[in-house]
């Protein structure tokens, strides 16, 4: 950061310092009031038994966390979140990469298909969740109507079956995310110099698969790492579809981390306990970022 001596530095050192402070002041105040203090308060809250509407609160140390460890509901919620993330991340990355490669491989239909795959990213999640609810409806939904026509007499109840609800939500999650990963991969692909493909072909990489293995995949490394992290973080945050479609049900089969946090905090008003769940969530997110930095350190990267 302390790079080259800027000519403007000598022009007005005091004036410049003053200007710098004044220009950052609004952002700094908003940062302190809306981000820093509430975040610290959330951390502090996790060590109290504060409940909204109660007159006071007590510091209870790690009690919230030991309650979390013993809480079956929380264990289910954590497990469901892991399963959801475990389905959504690999599938939306694989499909996004596939779509990006197919789009890049030719000229025809580029803009059209890019727009089609990207559409879910800009669509109102709540409204599209309602559309999915109709699509997956056990009796009147087109999906089950089609399955019945294909001779499957008892198609699953999808969102209202505790065996299928997570898979159904994950399918919606993949549908939402694949356009996003595709766009990121497209940006990464355009950064690969064309000449490398020609060179690989001269060196005997005749088949597209070989060129992918030799050129595309290694050069896409940093992009892929970034896409993996961002998709993990985006899918750990799953909330909207659960809040709209299942409210964690049936039988807690779709209870996920942020929804549990929301319900404990804003329905039962147990803010201390909810803050403890928030901290677990924060630690997971920070852990993912930390893993990314670790992986970045080890990887050779280009550009």
């Amino acid at each position, binding site marked *: 950061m302390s790079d080259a001596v800027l000519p403007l530095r000598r022009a007005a050192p005091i004036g410049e310092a003053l200007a*710098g402070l004044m220009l950052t002041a609004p952002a700094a105040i908003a940062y302190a009031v809306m981000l820093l203090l509430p975040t610290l308060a959330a951390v502090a809250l996790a060590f109290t038994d504060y409940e909204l509407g109660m007159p006071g609160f007590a510091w209870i140390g790690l009690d919230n966390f030991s309650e979390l460890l013993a809480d079956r509901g929380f264990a289910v919620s954590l497990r469901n979140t892991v399963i959801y993330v475990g389905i959504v991340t690999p599938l939306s990355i694989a499909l996004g990469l596939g779509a990006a490669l197919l789009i890049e491989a030719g000229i025809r239909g580029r803009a059209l298909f890019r*727009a089609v795959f990207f559409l879910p990213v800009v669509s109102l999640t709540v409204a599209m969740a309602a559309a999915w609810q109709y699509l997956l409806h056990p009796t009147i939904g087109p999906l089950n109507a089609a399955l019945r026509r294909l001779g499957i007499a008892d198609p699953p109840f999808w969102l209202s079956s505790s065996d299928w609800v997570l898979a159904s939500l994950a399918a919606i999650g993949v549908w939402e995310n694949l356009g996003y990963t595709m766009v990121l991969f497209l940006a990464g692909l355009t950064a690969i110099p064309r000449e490398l493909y020609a060179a690989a072909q001269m060196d005997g990489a005749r088949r597209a698969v070989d060129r992918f293995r030799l050129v595309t995949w290694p050069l896409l490394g940093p992009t892929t790492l970034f896409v993996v992290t961002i998709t993990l973080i985006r899918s750990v945050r799953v909330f909207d579809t659960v809040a709209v479609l299942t409210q964690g049900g049936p039988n807690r089969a779709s209870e996920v981390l942020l929804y549990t946090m929301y319900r404990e905090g804003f329905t039962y008003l147990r803010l201390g306990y909810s*803050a403890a769940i928030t901290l677990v969530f924060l630690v997971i997110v920070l852990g993912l970022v930390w893993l990314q930095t670790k992986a970045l350190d080890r990887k050779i990267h280009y550009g």
Partner: protein
Amino acid sequence: MDERRSWLADAPRLLLLAALGLLVLAPYVWMVSASLKPLDELFRASLALWPERFFAVENYGKVFARVPVFQYIWNGIVVCAGILAFQLLFAVPAGYALAKLRFPGRDIAFGAVMLGLLVPPHVPALPLYVGFSQLGMLNTYAALILPFTISVFAIFLFRQFFKALPDELIHAARLDGMSEAGIVWRVVLPNAWPAATAFAIFSVVAHWNDLFWPLIVVEGPSRATPALGVLFFRSDEAGDDFAALMAAAVIMTAPLVLAFLFAQRRFVEGIATTGLKG
């Protein structure tokens, strides 16, 4: 990488893309189709996309008659515009100062920005809710807008962008006697238009679609955003009336999707550049 391929050679690629594309579009197709059908046709679960009896007027009419659609959309516009205006107002000067000025505490400020990038908005939500509720500010535009007025991501994005602007540009403006604030808004920002549009699109998409925070601070229709509007309609009015529910979903999805279709390239680039830097 053959640039000019025959349709025949291109066919497998196009077929695969079309198949995947149809899967992605399926929810939209069925949503629109259901919004045009009468309820009894829906309950027969026929696989015909085109309605036997055209019921669009009734379904859409029901939505407009029962819920304040324009109020929801207006709330969405006010909230998104308010958030974006404050984000730019705070982040552009801060980004400029961090990129081009030397002042005490600059490194700490930049460290705070990087740290802020790591905190998801769900973390400060509980204390912010308590604060707004103590101040009697629940169910106001202020409660919907204020928590997002500071975007560390915007500061970071603008700082990166401004760093690449030539110092001579700023130096020349200073020699012309322009104040630092004048430089920010009249010299630096006009040169940062690509970053500003990219960020604007990112911000509007995020907040138009957000459900978490509005669900926490809003009760009733007066301040409900489109996302909440669909949720209310779904639980109160529609029940099993999927035809009307799909009509409501179409109406609320339309504004942003139309904006996207008109300015596709900008949207995709906006999300890609902001995404890659996030």
